[in-house]
């Protein structure tokens, strides 16, 4: 079977909504971070696929994917640093227990 744009798009859409679902239901900060990474990777797939199949003589989408990957790495580094700091202060990273701020 030949693989078309639509197959990739189904994968990326499923990834995006899995990420959104995970973001709202997971209780562990690291699991939430992984969910967000899933969403970011879904967008990277989209850019690469649109570029490869719809506009093969350009490179814009590929560049967007590259920048997306680099920026996501920077964000993850900062997010993990902050999560470590949360752990140092509160000794756990479950969202049910990190509720000092509310109202």
């Amino acid at each position, binding site marked *: 079977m030949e693989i078309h744009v639509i197959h990739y798009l189904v994968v990326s859409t499923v990834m995006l909504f899995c*990420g959104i679902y995970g973001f709202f239901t997971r209780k562990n900060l690291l699991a939430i971070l992984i969910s967000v990474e899933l*969403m970011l990777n879904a967008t990277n797939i989209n850019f690469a696929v649109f*570029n490869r199949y719809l506009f093969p003589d350009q490179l814009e989408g590929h560049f967007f994917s590259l*920048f997306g990957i680099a920026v996501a790495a920077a964000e993850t580094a900062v997010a993990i640093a902050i999560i470590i700091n*949360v752990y*140092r202060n509160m000794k756990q990273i479950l969202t049910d227990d990190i509720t000092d701020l509310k*109202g």
Partner: protein
Amino acid sequence: MNGFLSMQAEFGMVAAIVVMLLADLILKRPNHKPLQALAVVLTLALTVLCLTEPAGEAFGGMYVNTSIASAVKAILTAGTLLVFTLAGRWLEREDTSYKAGEFYMLTLSTLFGMYLMVSSGSFLTFYIGLETASIPMACLVALDKWRRHSAEAGAKFILSSMFSSALMLYGVSMLYGTSGTAYFTDAAAMLAGTPLQIAAMVFFFAGLGFKISLVPFHAWTPDTYQGAPTPVTGYLSVVSKGAAAFALTAILMKVFGQMVENWSLLLGIVIVVTITVANLFAVLQKDMKRFMAYSSISQAGYLVLGTLAGSGQGMASLVYYLAVYVVANLAIFGIIGIVEQQTGRTDRDAYNGFYRTNPHLTFIMTLALFSLGGIPPFAGFFSKFFVFASAFHAGHWLVVFLALVNTIISLYYYLLVVKAMFITQTDSPAPAFKSPALARTGLVVCLAGILVLGICSGVYDWLTDLSMQF
């Protein structure tokens, strides 16, 4: 070569960041005092650079600077300058003084990202600018390393910021799929309002809605504002929000100009919900920082009311609103910061009987609250009037009416603070404070802004001229 002259503020900013980094390394600790003076001088120079920046393009149209974008950058830099003057007391503390250099450097980095965001010509530059603005911002929110509130606020901020940029990027990817380009001008020519493009617009709007904290996407705002160090909260509430709001307006007008019926309906509903919900929650708050967070959500609703008009007039009124909002909000956050450093409290009861011990601070706070509430003759009245006028002019009279009703609700909660300061009796009012000279200068500048910006009509005319060239 000429194109790079239109990036003079950006180059100046990179130089300023490097100078700040080196100064932090070279100056002997504790170095928070000379660093603050240096940061103030640098931002002052950057404001001048922004004001004199010529319009132009660079990097093959990925960077496009317009006159109104330069004006916005100047306003944002001036706001940062005020934050720097007011941050002195917080950075004096023993557990933060060694981080003073980091604070100034990170703040300037976020400002650099906002420069790129405001004058981007393609979605790629815009995305990079947005992330350059929000990643160091997360570090700033979590800067009080040993306060658990700060860590919690930082975690909430970075995760929701990543979530929102993922949503936004998904919208951009759909847009790229339908138009084959990421440049604003080229994409605009390809848009026809197909269902996929409408979905792309909604995703994009949701992503930026998080950054501006419009209502269905505002959940992170109160927690982050309360937990972050007070000068950072002030910075978040005006500078970061203002940059995102202007970028949203510019992109909706430039790229999605063909789909104006689609987004004006969406935006109208979001604005009304934002202002109403934020006002209702603000009434309930006891903590001043949390209260100002809800107040700033509702102000964001008024701010994007200028976007709704989708015209040069709307853009001018948005930028004017931003300038007025910067001075009023920073005055309030400056005073909240001073009180927090002196008494360790941020709740409203700490302000009971404030009038008797600190008449000057009370005076500035009262005028700033009046300006936020929109009482004439202060600047806030005129800025509200202009955004209402622009939205009304574009035919959104229902939205304007509902926003007007909400202004009255907002007056109630702003006046609650004034009541606490002047009327509520207490046996132990906060002691009299003496602020550092730089902080006093900052507050006086804010006060002058509140009084002068409204009365001197030249400012609005100037902004209108600039946005007509947009």
